[in-house]
């Protein structure tokens, strides 16, 4: 662990002139203020989400479809299930591409194409998610002539892939070379070494990466706005518009109705809870590997 100023003994200030002493106190005090200021918005947002959300969330929220404007009650069942479907579909595409691509980068690092693949993954990470939504629109919505869960899942998969690519490559790199050598020395071909000796050791790290990627895309709204669109009703078919929790929250938040605002807070609470649960699951998976 790096040694920092806090680890070093405090310099005695008794012989320092007053001006420098005051400056020292003032600037260090500002740093304490800065961290307090950094935590204030976190507190405000979480407290508001918890307070407004808890007062609005009930069993109905999870089991009923939205009611028309003016009627109290109703829920976001279709949005919650829709989100699960979208993340699931995205994972079906995103996980194989990301993991297998990561295996390639880790197993054949000397190939010249590797630098380009890593560059492409960096570009995908840095690009705003709405741009990926536009691409998914052009590639899926236009040929299919309809908004669909598949288009939404395509956009989300493009967000998941670079996360999984990088995680897989790093986790496989962490596996000690001696393991690989032992497997090869026993006569296993390179592909069996990679898939059955090295990959199982890296597996829990990759699963963690997958969970974190899922948590990330579960909260994405922008790419879904014109790919999966939204839906007032429950939808099981991947080729139809599908509701999702973030898009439903957005729709309700910008509306002028107080009842919808309440529902939006409840939705925000459920979304934050879902993402929190996935992140905690990811941490637990890491810790059990380290233990």
């Amino acid at each position, binding site marked *: 662990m790096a040694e920092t100023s806090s680890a070093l003994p405090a310099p005695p200030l008794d012989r320092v002139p007053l001006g420098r002493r005051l400056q020292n106190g003032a600037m260090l005090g500002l740093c304490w203020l800065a961290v307090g200021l950094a935590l204030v918005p976190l507190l405000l947002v979480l407290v508001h989400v918890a307070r407004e959300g808890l007062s609005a969330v009930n069993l109905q929220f999870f089991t009923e479809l939205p009611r028309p404007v003016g009627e109290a009650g109703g829920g976001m069942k279709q949005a919650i299930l829709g989100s699960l479907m979208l993340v699931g579909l995205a994972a079906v595409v995103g996980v194989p591409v990301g993991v297998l691509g990561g295996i390639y980068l880790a197993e054949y690092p000397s190939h010249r194409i590797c630098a380009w693949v890593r560059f492409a993954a960096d570009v995908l990470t840095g690009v705003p*998610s709405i741009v990926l939504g536009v691409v998914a629109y052009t590639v899926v919505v236009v040929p299919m002539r309809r908004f669909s869960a598949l288009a939404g899942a395509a956009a989300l998969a493009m967000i998941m892939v670079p996360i999984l690519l990088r995680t897989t490559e790093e986790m496989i790199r962490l596996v000690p070379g001696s393991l690989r050598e032992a497997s090869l020395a026993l006569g296993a071909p390179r592909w069996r070494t990679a898939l059955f000796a090295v990959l199982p050791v890296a597996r829990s790290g990759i699963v963690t990466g997958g969970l974190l990627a899922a948590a990330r895309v579960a909260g994405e709204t922008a790419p879904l706005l014109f790919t999966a669109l939204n839906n007032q009703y429950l939808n099981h078919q991947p080729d139809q518009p599908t509701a999702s929790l973030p898009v439903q929250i957005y729709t309700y938040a910008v509306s002028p109705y107080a009842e919808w605002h309440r529902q939006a807070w409840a939705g925000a609470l459920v979304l934050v809870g879902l993402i929190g649960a996935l992140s905690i699951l990811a941490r637990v998976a890491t810790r059990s590997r380290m233990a």
Partner: protein
Amino acid sequence: MAVETPVLNTVPAAVPSVAAAARGDAVFLRVTQAFALAVLGVVAFAVITTAVRAWPAMRAFGPAFLIRSTWDPVAEQFGAWPFIWGTLYSSLLALLLAVPVGVGAAVFLAELCPAWLRAPVSFLVELLAAIPSVVYGLWGVLVMVPWLRERVQAPLAAGLGNWPLFSGAPYGVSLLAAAVILAIMILPIITAVTRDVLLAVPVEQRQASLALGSTRWEAIWRAVLPFGRVGIMGGIILALGRALGETMAVTMVIGNRPEASVSLLSPAYSLAAVLANEFAEATGALHRAALQEITLVLFGITFLVNALARWMVWSITRRSGRGG
């Protein structure tokens, strides 16, 4: 790092022939390479399809698209300047707010924080990054904007309304609201990167400064921060890249008025916000092409900013690798 040793059962009962092993290896190589190339292909394809779809607008308006101010779907007159202005202005304002607080918080975490407190506080700051953008937008539009309107903008408009910076009616939804919410969202990036950079500064720097009689603050300001300045700049530019592309929270609080204004109180528009609002409902072919061109502009801006940040990080790692 402890790694469980697995049972090595890679060798089948009958050892495969060399030819079979080579075939298996070739298939493995081709399959994994194909998936890796798919990633490259997706990015190339994304750029090409967007450019192709944007071509009608590029042909109609030329490079002047970037500086024209009219956005009129009915008259089919499109110009991206209000969006570019809104995006850049709100992001730079957000940096102005977030950099002092973020660097200060990072200095606290790296230099002043007792060791036992560091992990919990770092965790809390990183929790800011985990909250989805739409939740920030919800809080922004229902809680922060009314508060800003009453407590900040109304007094500013009343007192300093004749300054260009504070002119216009205090609607609440404005560049100021967008800047504040962006600042909150990019704060964790600045804090995390700066904290890591400061923790990597060798302890000898601090020891030498303190040995020469500096106070703790002087040691930080003169010995530690300058040592890490390239990394800190890289973190700031990374945060800028994030702010430029932020969509939902900005859409909900920026006011969505396609007009470039200097006033903090004026509603504005950003590149990502116009895509979010108009893309699903754009009817004319030229309107859609203009939106695709905006997508291309946004892609280009964020790509350049992220490339700059990555180059800065690469140049420090290269320098430190040489023992700098």
